[in-house]
């Protein structure tokens, strides 16, 4: 299958990858932080500003109608990408973080009360911890954390045990940003629904690596960021079941989210506009639509297969590299190679690799509880995307060898 995937041709779609850093070809392995943008996305944004720029949902003039149509088309692309039932179930936000905060503030304030429980996992990103902590503090609810084992696999027995009649909501990452673990989301949703809890899936890391079907998962909310999906920064998505979004109060007030306003009363707009106050990131949504077209054009299955092959190659290469210990070795994982190098602190590794043109993330990856669970302050994280190659993994391994030599 991967023979059909021509990574060298894909790389040509990403102008940024052509450069050299410190005299070496750029090896970009920080994709879990943000991915690079294909020319199709850059072009779509440029074209919008050069030809169609206007505010949406107002004005009868041609440009406004074009901009509105382009924005609507982007929403439809996201709907199809997630296989949501209806376009109004797609709410545009700034990023996954804002999407989670929207649910915590709107759904949480309306439906979570004293003594209720919010269940999260031990491998969450800070974005899927802090909004729930804030909600729990405000409502007198309790935050319950499902533990994981030493490989970074969620303990499903514990999860089942921690679910109960007080569980209001389960918030879980689809793919852990620090460990690469893929969580069994469909199973988690089914178990949570049995006790009457709602489920929010944080798909920030998953959405650009694997096909997502929100109806098959049956999750209540699914969130992701455009910039990790080869799209621009500043645009994010909240998918929510229409029946739930209908029941939820607005998150922010302002223009576009209203039907009529007097000083006595405001009648809110319908979905999804109720949650989209103010002029949205129109070019961002259009850029995200172009990114989705690009990615589906490559084929999610083929991209996933290529990345699995790279992950296998990288896992084996790092496991046989002297002094490397992988952190996060779940059986079911994707795209993330988190590790420590014996005798060299991750920051020093990061600086040394950068001198060879290799971009990795070092630190706690906005997941300090994960680091604490493994008794580490930091790791080095190489994260893969569709344009990475085996040669780049070889460059990483060789850079690590140089780091060991320097510190030897």
């Amino acid at each position, binding site marked *: 299958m991967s023979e059909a995937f021509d990574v060298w041709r894909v790389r040509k779609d990403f102008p940024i990858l052509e450069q050299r850093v*410190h005299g070496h070809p750029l090896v970009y392995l920080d994709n879990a932080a943000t991915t690079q943008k294909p020319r199709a996305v850059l072009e779509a944004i440029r074209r919008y500003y050069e030809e169609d720029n206007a505010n949406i949902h107002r004005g009868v003039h041609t440009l406004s109608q074009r901009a509105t149509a382009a924005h609507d088309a982007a929403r439809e692309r996201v709907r199809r990408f997630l296989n949501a039932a209806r376009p109004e179930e797609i709410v545009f936000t700034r990023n996954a973080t804002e999407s989670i905060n929207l649910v915590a503030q709107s759904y949480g304030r309306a439906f979570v009360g004293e003594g209720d429980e919010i269940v999260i996992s031990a491998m969450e990103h800070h974005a899927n911890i802090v909004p729930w902590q804030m909600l729990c503090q405000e409502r007198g609810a309790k935050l319950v954390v499902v533990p994981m084992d030493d490989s970074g696999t969620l303990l499903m027995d514990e999860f089942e045990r921690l679910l109960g009649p007080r569980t209001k909501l389960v918030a879980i990452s689809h793919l852990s940003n620090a460990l690469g673990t893929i969580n069994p989301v469909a199973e988690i949703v089914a178990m949570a629904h049995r006790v009457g809890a709602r489920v929010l899936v944080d798909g920030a890391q998953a959405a650009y690596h694997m096909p997502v079907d929100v109806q098959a998962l049956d999750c209540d909310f699914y969130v992701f960021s455009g910039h990790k999906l080869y799209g621009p920064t500043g645009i994010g998505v909240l998918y929510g079941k229409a029946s739930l979004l209908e029941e939820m109060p607005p998150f922010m007030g302002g223009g576009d989210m209203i039907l009529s306003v007097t000083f006595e009363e405001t009648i809110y707009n319908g979905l999804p506009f109720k949650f989209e106050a103010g002029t949205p990131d129109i070019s961002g949504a259009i850029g995200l639509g172009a990114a989705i077209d690009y990615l589906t054009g490559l084929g999610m299955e083929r991209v996933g297969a290529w990345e699995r092959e790279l992950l296998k190659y990288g896992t084996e290469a790092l496991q046989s590299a002297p002094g490397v210990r992988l952190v996060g070795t779940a059986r079911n994982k994707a795209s993330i190679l988190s590790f420590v190098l014996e005798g*060299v*602190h*991750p*920051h*020093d590794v990061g*600086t*040394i690799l950068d*001198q060879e043109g290799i971009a990795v993330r*070092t*630190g*706690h990856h906005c997941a*300090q509880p994960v*680091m604490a669970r493994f008794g580490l*302050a*930091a790791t080095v994280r190489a994260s893969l995307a569709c344009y990475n190659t085996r040669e780049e993994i070889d460059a990483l391994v060789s850079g690590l060898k*140089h780091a060991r030599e*320097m*510190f030897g």
Partner: protein
Amino acid sequence: MSDLRELYQEVILDHNRKPRNCRPMENPTGKAEGHNPLCGDNVTIYLDVQDGVIRDVSFEGSGCAISKSSASLMTSVLKGKTVEEAEALFQRFHELVTSDPTREPDVEGLGKLAVFAGVREYPVRVKCASLAWHTLHAALLQSAATVTTE
């Protein structure tokens, strides 16, 4: 690799491997904790200041080679210095690591600490080098406060 040798000088690597004065202290006159939330580095500085003179200084913590060797070298040059001399050295050190990397570094009076001139080329690592010093500053203030309340 040659550029990196400017950053990771032998003295720095040596102090990273064998940090000096890396131990807790009982009954310190000043103690402060420093964190670099960006990278998770942390350091605790212990001070024993008597009559305005640093009798002993030690540290504990975890961090990269730059932050660990900076703490180690700092503690090894501070013993016997007055509080004023220590503060002046902090000032000079801070000037060194934040100075323009295209100019010749001004290392006068810095002695062994001059090895950190290479950090100037790596702006994101300046915080690693200066964490111990900022924490020392806090410990010195605490030490001064302890003395005045006694």
